[in-house]
């Protein structure tokens, strides 16, 4: 095993390298539909597996669990749901995809959408830690500006009384 060398205070130079890069990702046919519906109609869509009849989320060409082609049975999902689990971050973070600064603290939740029960992870509007404990029923609030980011076209989920 190694031993720690006596520190002689050598000249340590830290080299800062800022290396911005741009990427262009393809949405493909299936995710493309999610982006298009979100952008144009403020709707969340998913395709249904012909075998297990479960919604595939995120939409894809195959159902990996059934090993079959998923096909084009598209369903518009409810934008209401129930919070299954949540947390909130107490340290600041950047959205690595678009460079947005995420407010501090911000809560994220695993939300079970109504009807077909797809689970998705998204932000909550409620930021009060005490009130968060009681958040159950929520509904998507769509952005008006800067859309075209698929699921990111939803700003957050707002608490609803039901």
């Amino acid at each position, binding site marked *: 095993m190694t031993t720690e060398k006596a520190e002689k205070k*050598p000249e340590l130079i830290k080299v800062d390298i800022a290396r911005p890069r741009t990427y262009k990702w393809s949405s493909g046919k299936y995710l493309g539909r999610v982006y298009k519906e979100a952008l144009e109609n403020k709707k969340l869509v998913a395709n249904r597996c012909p075998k297990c009849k479960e919604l595939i989320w995120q939409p894809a060409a195959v159902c990996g669990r059934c090993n079959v082609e998923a096909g084009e049975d598209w369903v518009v999902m409810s934008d209401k749901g129930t919070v299954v689990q949540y947390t*909130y971050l107490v340290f600041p973070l950047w959205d690595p995809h678009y460079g947005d600064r995420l407010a501090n603290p911000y809560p994220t939740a695993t939300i079970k959408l109504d009807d077909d029960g797809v689970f998705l992870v998204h932000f909550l509007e409620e930021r009060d830690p005490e009130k968060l404990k009681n958040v159950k029923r929520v509904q998507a609030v769509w952005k008006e500006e800067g859309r075209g980011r698929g699921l990111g076209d939803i700003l957050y989920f707002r608490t609803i009384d039901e």
Partner: protein
Amino acid sequence: MGNRVAIVGIGQTFHKSNRKDVTLQEMVGEAVRAALLDAQMKTQDVEAVFTANMETFENIFLPDAMMADETAAFMKPGLKVATGGTAGASVVEEGFHFVASGLFDTALVIGFEKQDCGDTTAAITGAVTPVWGKGVATGAIGEFAKQALTYMQKTGAKEEHAAMVRLKADKGACRNPYAHLRLGLKSIKEVLDSGYLVWPLKFLEFCPQSSGACALIFASEQKARKITRKPVWIADLVTVHQEPFRAGSFGDPTGKEEYSQDIAVDRLYKRNGITNPIRDICMAEIYEPSNWEEMSHYEHYHFCPRNEGWKMVEKGMTEMEGEFPVNPSGGVIATNPIGATPTIRVAEAALQVRGDAGEHQVTRDVHTAMATALGGPNWTVATLLRRSL
């Protein structure tokens, strides 16, 4: 199974937040030299070199090529593996397969990470396609926070139990000179009062960002017997992949999914005649990014019945002197150079089998030990080590 494979050399660096005194390759070189020294081997005795890390963390595409001089890889065969959090265990599997196949008689296996280079949480968040957006915008930690909450609600475990796990880890880390966080915690109150990081996880309840490396030398049976009097045999190794759950998270809010941990250990136990894990295995080094995760893993690995992980903690069963010690090294919550973390689990388990763990050697005689790794999305690697085969 192929030929028998033994661990004949073990080396690691001191793990710290910052290693500004060395370059990445120099840091890795420290672990390599330590392993060679431990095995009493020379660089030319190594036939092949296998490396692992999380490649976006240092933002270097071919670190293995860059490190060739320090890793004794010059003009030798080898591969680099990147399987996320499990990379450091996948590389153990890779080296094991190559030696077991008879292709090489010796192999050097290295896990490393220099997290002082970049922003780890941002790098992890970039693990998913941006086309899918928001999913893991909390890095790994948000997922483990939600799992902690689920565990609390499902099992009735209290924050005090998690704090006891953290205290146990620190006790081990303080006896392990290589551990990163050696805090000297005195009471669970210190953990409970450390403030929230990501609710309900507190500041002291999540692993640090460490820089460090761990190297192991593997040898075929014939070579191993010549190299050392204390070979540690890799009895078996299982990898199970579970691509994202329906919910796209580590936990399973759907209640419909199978956990890769369950499947991995079921296979491992069945193949190796293990019917009562905490009797047949003597100790474990498990991959617990948070103290809450450790209790949950006790259950997944069948160390105890479902929903009773916290009871093992309450009884002190997994303490260094306990009936079934877990993570006497201090574990991941004390030391987490991510690409090296699973390699360290195997290294520390092997040291326990050899009886060479020094101050953190467990009380129980360790003839069999298990090391596990956890990675996204839901991968498990379980490695079983034995003193004799």
